[in-house]
């Protein structure tokens, strides 16, 4: 179970025409990806690539990974038929892949377990990470506590303010949270600061990136560790319904939960794949995080990808009610899947996500994170247009405990 895809992918179905063979030797998915880092980091990136390549071929590494995913994370996560929500919306049968039930409450831990095992294998003694919503920070702090490694998490000051519960959780877990006040104080700025830390501490430090972005091999490696989501869901849906879904939907910030859900379905042309970006206050408001729908290709944080930028190539601030989607870039594999039109990319606004957040709570008894509430907002748009025998699979990638304060404020409730 929980197999990491090999370069000739694990389904056995993928030949030379497979969409699952990327990236190439330069870390490119089509024109996107690559390794755009300062020379100081370049030898580290190359060493990481070699170490990951060895690890994923080593049965002992997979065994250790599977053991932790099963007994510590709690995998496989359930597949839930959201029957009341399906009836309320009318139309398609909706299934949730419940990665919000993982230990720490989101899909982020899947990747953290994989990378912390790799960091140990590389004999690194200090871990750094960036975080937006704090879910990746909490997951990183968790695995560092589990393995007794010191952990520093960079987090924008805006995010520190709107995600207080997660800041406290990280501290309880023994991590040091360093607030970053540069820029708008969000995920982009936290990532800049983590890269600055890494460049100053190259010998002992492992940078545990939380999404499918950054220089090669991170986009590939994080995708591989997250693909357990789609692999499980595929098998679970086959058991429940005897077939593939008609549509699979996931929200996109950097895009790790979506890549994890989509990758195992890329070679199944009958499955429509839909990624939902954050439209913030509206796609034409200038305050959104829709890198694919409103950005253009450029280079930031080590990879070539779609970015929100001005005419001079300066990076624009993203906006979303969801701290986890508040990023002006996106993983390079998504940029490629967008260009070749294998995945459809759409957007949901703050208001639509808030409505979906409440709908999910009241119909299914599940308080979702604001991030997957964006995916659900799109599900709510398309489900009524589909037949009752059609199936939507949605990744419920995080739980909403962290968001209740921000949501209460938006709803005008004082806690």
């Amino acid at each position, binding site marked *: 179970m929980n197999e990491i895809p090999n370069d000739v992918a694990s389904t056995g179905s993928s030949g030379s025409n497979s969409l699952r063979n990327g990236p190439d030797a*330069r870390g490119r998915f089509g024109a996107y990806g*690559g*390794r*755009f*880092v*300062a*020379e*100081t*980091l*370049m*030898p*580290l990136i190359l060493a990481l690539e070699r170490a990951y390549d060895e690890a994923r071929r080593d049965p002992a590494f997979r065994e250790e990974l599977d053991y932790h995913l099963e007994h510590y994370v709690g995998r496989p996560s359930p597949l839930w038929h959201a029957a009341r929500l399906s009836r309320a919306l009318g139309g398609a049968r909706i299934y949730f892949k419940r990665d919000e039930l993982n230990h720490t409450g989101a899909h982020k831990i899947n990747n953290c377990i994989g990378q912390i095992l790799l960091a140990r294998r590389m004999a690194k003694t200090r871990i750094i990470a960036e975080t937006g919503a704090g879910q990746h920070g909490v997951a990183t702090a968790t695995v560092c506590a589990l393995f007794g490694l010191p952990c520093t998490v960079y987090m924008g000051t805006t995010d520190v303010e709107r995600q207080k519960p997660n800041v406290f959780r990280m501290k309880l877990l023994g991590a040091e949270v360093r607030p970053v006040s*540069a*820029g708008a104080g969000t995920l*982009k700025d936290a990532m*800049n600061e983590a*890269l*600055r830390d890494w*460049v*100053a*501490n*190259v*010998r002992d430090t492992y940078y545990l990136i939380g999404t499918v972005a950054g220089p090669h091999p991170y986009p590939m490696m994080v995708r591989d560790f997250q693909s357990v989501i789609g692999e499980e869901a595929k098998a679970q849906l086959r058991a429940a319904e005897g077939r593939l879904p008609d549509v699979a939907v996931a929200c996109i910030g950097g895009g790790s939960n979506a890549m994890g859900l989509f990758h195992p379905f890329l070679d199944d042309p009958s499955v429509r794949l839909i990624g939902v970006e954050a439209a913030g206050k509206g796609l034409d408001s200038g305050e959104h995080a829709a890198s694919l729908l409103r950005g253009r*290709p*450029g*280079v*930031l*944080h*080590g990879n070539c990808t779609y*970015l929100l*930028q001005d*005419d*001079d*190539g*300066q*990076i624009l601030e993203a906006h979303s009610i969801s701290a986890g989607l508040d990023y002006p870039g996106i993983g390079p594999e998504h940029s490629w899947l967008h260009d070749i039109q294998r995945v459809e990319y759409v957007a949901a606004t703050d208001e639509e996500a808030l409505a979906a957040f409440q709908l999910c709570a009241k119909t299914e008894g599940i308080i979702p994170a604001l991030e997957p509430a964006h995916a659900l907002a799109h599900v709510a748009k398309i489900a009524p247009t589909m037949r009752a025998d059609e199936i939507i699979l949605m990744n419920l990638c995080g739980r909403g405990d962290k968001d209740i304060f921000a949501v209460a404020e938006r709803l005008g409730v004082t806690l």
Partner: protein
Amino acid sequence: MTRIAARFASLRRAGRGGLIPFLEAYDPDAETSAALLAGLPEAGADLIEIGVPFTDPMADGPIIQAAGRRALNAGATLRRTLAMVRDFRRTDADTPIILMGYLNPILSYGPEPFARDAAACGVDGLIVVDLPAEEADLLLPHAKANLLDVIRLVAPTTDDARLPKVLEGSSGFVYYVSITGITGTRSATTAELAANIPRIRRITDLPIAVGFGVKTPVQAAEVVQIADAAVVASSLIATLAASLDAKGRAGSGTVARVLGDVRALAAGVRGARVAA
């Protein structure tokens, strides 16, 4: 011969190392920045590095980050930075100008038109921090076609096996990043430099400049006893920042104070005893 090669040849003839001060284009405003640039050669700059402002300068410490924010607020763009160099060339035909920055503004401009316009404006060399040797084919052919030197960064983490790859296609000079870290933080020791510079000399005949952490005239003098030039950035920008008023505007003494620092650095570099 390119301006950079000519300048290093004349430094060699004079038996001394060079000083390469850095300024961020448009910091704190277009006029002050242009006045600083115009005054640098007379103050003792042998070559000049101009930082191209970028929103996300991942290799820079707080001092240069702040300079970049001031510059962007003052309306800096890559196009305007090139125009600043063009204006400088009206009064100075000899001092080499090197642009240092990040890749995305160049990509946004278009690598080919950028290389053409940069050369036409009188730029001599390019340092692109986030463009390692592995990705350099994106810019290198256009730079070469326009006789622009592409100057490579070599770091303490660049081992001997990797050095030839890093230096492949590089010209002008080699920029040795003397520490593992961001700009304006710690300084390398003379022993660290003495261990690393010969490593690079064995692979290339290009001159070697040392930057990151070179702050004082004494440090600059130490650097040029081992390498061919010293780059000084953050300490000059710190002087500039300290001269600004509460609203971040240049005062009447801003240009003079920064150029005063440059004069002291130049005196340090010129007084250093250089091994033949």
